[in-house]
C-alpha cells in the first residue's frame, strides 16, 4: 500500500475517531442532562413521597382523634339517655303523687262541704225551732190578750162592722169613678208590669189596637207591631217601653201602629214609669191616633210650600234678568246705570233672604216641620260648619280659637237643624265683630246642676258656646233678642242687612228639640252665645218636611 493511502486511512480514522469522540461527547452530554433530569425527577418524587408520608401521618392522627371524639360522644349520649330516663321516672312519680294529692284534697273538700251543709241545716233547724217556740209563746200571749179583747163590748164590734161596710162602699164608688174617668179619657191607656206584660187597658186603647181584650191581657206589649214611616218594624231596643225603662224617664215617640187588617195609622205614644218608694213597678203608656193632626200638618205644609213657590218666582226672575244685564252681553251701561242695577240686585237678594226666613218662621209657627234624628259626631260637624265660613273669617282678619273635648261625642241629631243653629251663631259672631277681632267656638259636655254662663242646667247637655269680641248686646235688649224681627240698635247700625229672624228661628228649633239657648254679653266688649242640646239627643218630631 502506498504511504499516501495509509496516511489517508489514518486521517480518515482520525477523523472517524474525532467524529466518534464528538458523538460520544454529545451522547455524554445528553446523558448528563438526562441524568440531571432523572435526578430532579427523583428528588421531586422523594419530596412528594415525603409529603405523602407526612399527610398520611396527619390523617392517621386526625382519624385517631375522630375516633376518640366519637367514642366520647357515645359515652355522653349514653349518660344523657340515662339522665333522661331518670327525669322521666321522677316526672311520672310527681304526676302520680299530684293525682293522689288532688284526690285526697277533693275528698277532704267534699267532706268539708258536707260538714258545712250539715252545720247549716242544723243551724236552720235550730233557728226554726226557736222561731216556732217564739211564735207559740207570742200566740199564747196574744190569745190571752184576745180573750180579753173579745170580752170587750159587742158594741165596738158593731161599730167596726159598720165602718167596714162603709169603706167597701167607698172603694166600690171610687173604683166606679176611676172606671168612668178612664173610660172618659179620649186617649188610650195601657198599664204594663216590669216584664212589660199588659195588666190593664181602657176601652179606647182596646179599640185603637183592634184586638180582643182577652187576647191582650197578659201579652207582652212589644208584640204589638210598630213601624217607622218607611215601613220598617221598630226593633226592640228602640221601642218606647225599652227607652223609658232604660232612661227611667217619661218617653214620647211617634210611630205607625199596624192593625190586624194590616192597615196602619200614625200614633203618638207616651210612656211613663210608675214608681212606688222610688222603685219602678211598671209603666203607663198613653196612646193617641194623630192621623188628623198629621193631615192638618200636611195641609199647613202644602200651603207654605205653595206660598213659597209663588213668592220666590218673581224675585228669581228679577235676579236672573239683572244678571244678564250686568253680564255685559246686552250692551253697555253708564257707571251710574250700573250702580243702580247693582242696587236693584242687592235689594232683590234681601227680599229673597227675607222670604226664605219668613217661610221658616211660618213653618215653625205652624209646627209644620219635622225633626229626624241620626247618630252624628257632634264636634266634627261643628268643625265642618266652621270651616265653611273660613273665607269670611280670614277676609275679616278675625282670630279663631276652637276648644273641643278629647273624647268623641256621638249624639242623636237632625243634621240640617243642627247645621242651621250652629251656622247662625257663627255667622252672627262674624258679622257683629269688627275687623281684627276674635271668635272662639267651644264644645263641651255639661252636667245637671252645673252653672254655665249664669244658667243652672236642669239636665245633662252637649253645649256649643260661640264667643266673640264684637259689639255685644246692650243689657236692655238682651231679653228681647230671641223675639221675631228684633234687632238691637247697635246691630242695626253696624249691619243694616239683617232680617231679625235668625235668633228667633234658632230658639224655636232648640225649644222644639228639647234644647236651650242663652247668652252673656257686654256692650263693646263681646258676647257668648250658648246652644245646648240634651245628651239624650234632639227630641224627634213627625212633620211633613224638615226646616230649610
Amino acid at each position, binding site marked *: 500500500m502506498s504511504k499516501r493511502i495509509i496516511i489517508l486511512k489514518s486521517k480518515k480514522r482520525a477523523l472517524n475517531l474525532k467524529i466518534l469522540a464528538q458523538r460520544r461527547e454529545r451522547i455524554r452530554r445528553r446523558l448528563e442532562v438526562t441524568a440531571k433530569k432523572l435526578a430532579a425527577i427523583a428528588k421531586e418524587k422523594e419530596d412528594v413521597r415525603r409529603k405523602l408520608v407526612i399527610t398520611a401521618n396527619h390523617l392517621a392522627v386526625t382519624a385517631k382523634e375522630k375516633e376518640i371524639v366519637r367514642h366520647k360522644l357515645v359515652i355522653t349520649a349514653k349518660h344523657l339517655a340515662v339522665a333522661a330516663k331518670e327525669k322521666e321516672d321522677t316526672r311520672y312519680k310527681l304526676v302520680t303523687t299530684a293525682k293522689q294529692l288532688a284526690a285526697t284534697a277533693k275528698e277532704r273538700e267534699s267532706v268539708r262541704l258536707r260538714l258545712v251543709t250539715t252545720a247549716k241545716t242544723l243551724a236552720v233547724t235550730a233557728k226554726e225551732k226557736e222561731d216556732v217556740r217564739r211564735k207559740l209563746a207570742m200566740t199564747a200571749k196574744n190569745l190571752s190578750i184576745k180573750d180579753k179583747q173579745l170580752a170587750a163590748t159587742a158594741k165596738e164590734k158593731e161599730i167596726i162592722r159598720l165602718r167596714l161596710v162603709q169603706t167597701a162602699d167607698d172603694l166600690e164608688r171610687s173604683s166606679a169613678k176611676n172606671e168612668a174617668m178612664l173610660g172618659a179619657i179620649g186617649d188610650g191607656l195601657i198599664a204594663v208590669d216590669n216584664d212589660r206584660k199588659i195588666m190593664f187597658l181602657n176601652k179606647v186603647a182596646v179599640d185603637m189596637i183592634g184586638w180582643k181584650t182577652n187576647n191582650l191581657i197578659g201579652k207582652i206589649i212589644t208584640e204589638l207591631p210598630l213601624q217607622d214611616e218607611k215601613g220598617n218594624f221598630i226593633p226592640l231596643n228602640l221601642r218606647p217601653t225599652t227607652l223609658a225603662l232604660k232612661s227611667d224617664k217619661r218617653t214620647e215617640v211617634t210611630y205607625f201602629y199596624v192593625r190586624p187588617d194590616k192597615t196602619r195609622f200614625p200614633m203618638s205614644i207616651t210612656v211613663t214609669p210608675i214608681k212606688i218608694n222610688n222603685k219602678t213597678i211598671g209603666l203607663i203608656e198613653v196612646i193617641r191616633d194623630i192621623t188628623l193632626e198629621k193631615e192638618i200638618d200636611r195641609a199647613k*205644609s202644602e200651603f207654605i210650600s205653595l206660598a213659597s213657590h209663588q213668592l220666590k218666582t218673581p224675585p228669581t226672575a228679577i235676579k236672573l234678568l239683572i244678571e244678564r244685564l250686568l253680564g255685559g252681553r246686552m250692551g253697555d251701561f253708564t257707571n251710574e246705570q250700573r250702580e243702580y242695577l247693582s242696587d236693584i240686585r242687592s235689594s232683590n237678594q234681601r227680599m229673597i233672604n227675607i222670604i226664605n226666613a219668613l217661610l221658616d218662621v211660618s213653618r215653625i209657627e205652624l209646627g209644620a216641620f219635622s225633626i229626624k234624628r241620626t247618630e252624628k259626631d257632634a264636634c266634627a260637624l261643628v268643625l265642618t260648619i266652621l270651616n265653611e265660613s273660613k273665607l269670611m273669617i280670614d277676609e275679616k282678619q278675625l282670630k279663631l280659637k276652637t276648644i273641643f273635648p278629647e273624647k268623641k261625642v256621638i249624639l242623636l241629631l237632625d243634621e240640617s237643624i243642627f247645621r242651621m243653629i250652629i251656622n247662625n251663631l257663627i255667622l252672627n259672631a262674624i258679622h257683629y265683630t269688627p275687623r281684627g277681632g276674635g271668635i272662639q267656638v267651644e264644645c263641651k259636655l255639661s252636667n245637671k246642676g252645673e252653672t254655665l254662663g249664669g244658667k243652672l242646667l236642669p239636665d245633662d247637655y252637649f253645649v256649643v258656646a260661640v264667643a266673640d269680641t264684637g259689639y255685644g248686646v246692650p243689657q236692655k235688649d238682651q231679653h228681647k233678642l230671641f223675639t221675631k224681627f228684633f234687632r238691637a240698635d247697635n246691630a242695626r247700625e253696624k249691619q243694616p242687612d239683617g232680617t231679625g229672624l235668625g235668633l228667633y228661628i234658632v230658639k224655636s228649633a232648640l225649644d222644639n228639640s228639647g234644647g236651650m239657648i242663652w247668652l252673656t254679653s257686654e256692650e263693646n266688649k263681646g258676647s257668648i252665645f250658648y246652644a245646648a242640646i240634651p245628651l239624650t239627643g234632639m227630641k224627634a218630631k213627625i212633620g211633613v218636611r*224638615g226646616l230649610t
Partner: protein
Amino acid sequence: MIENKKTKILIVEDEAVINKVYADDLRDNGFEVVTAQNGKDGLELALSEKPDLILLDILMPVMDGLTMMDKLRNASSYGKNVPIILLTNLSADEEETIQALTKNEPAYYLVKSDWDLRDVMEKIRERLNRK
C-alpha cells in the same frame, strides 16, 4: 264635521221670563237652545230634537217635571241616558222627591232662587263632561 255641531240644550220651564233668561244666556255661550213651557211639550220636544242635556223645572202645569222625567226615562234608550238637571225652588214636595231620586240616578238639581247664571253654566258643563 261633528265638532262643528253645537251642543243642544232643552229648557222646560213654565215661567216665561226665567225660561227666556236661561235660553239667552246659553245661546250667548255657544249652545243651541230649544224651549218648552210644560211637561207635555217638553216630552215631545225631547224625543224629537234629542238634546244633549235637559234643564227641567218641576212644578209646571199640564204635566209636571217629575212625571215627564219618568216617561222620558222609559221611552227609549236615548230617553234613558240623556242627562237631566232639575230646576227647583225647594218647596216641600220637591225636596223629598229629589232626595229620593238622587239615590237612584245621578239627577242633578239646582235651586233657581239661589244660583247665579255662572253657577248654572258650570253645572251644565260639569254634567256634560260626565258623559
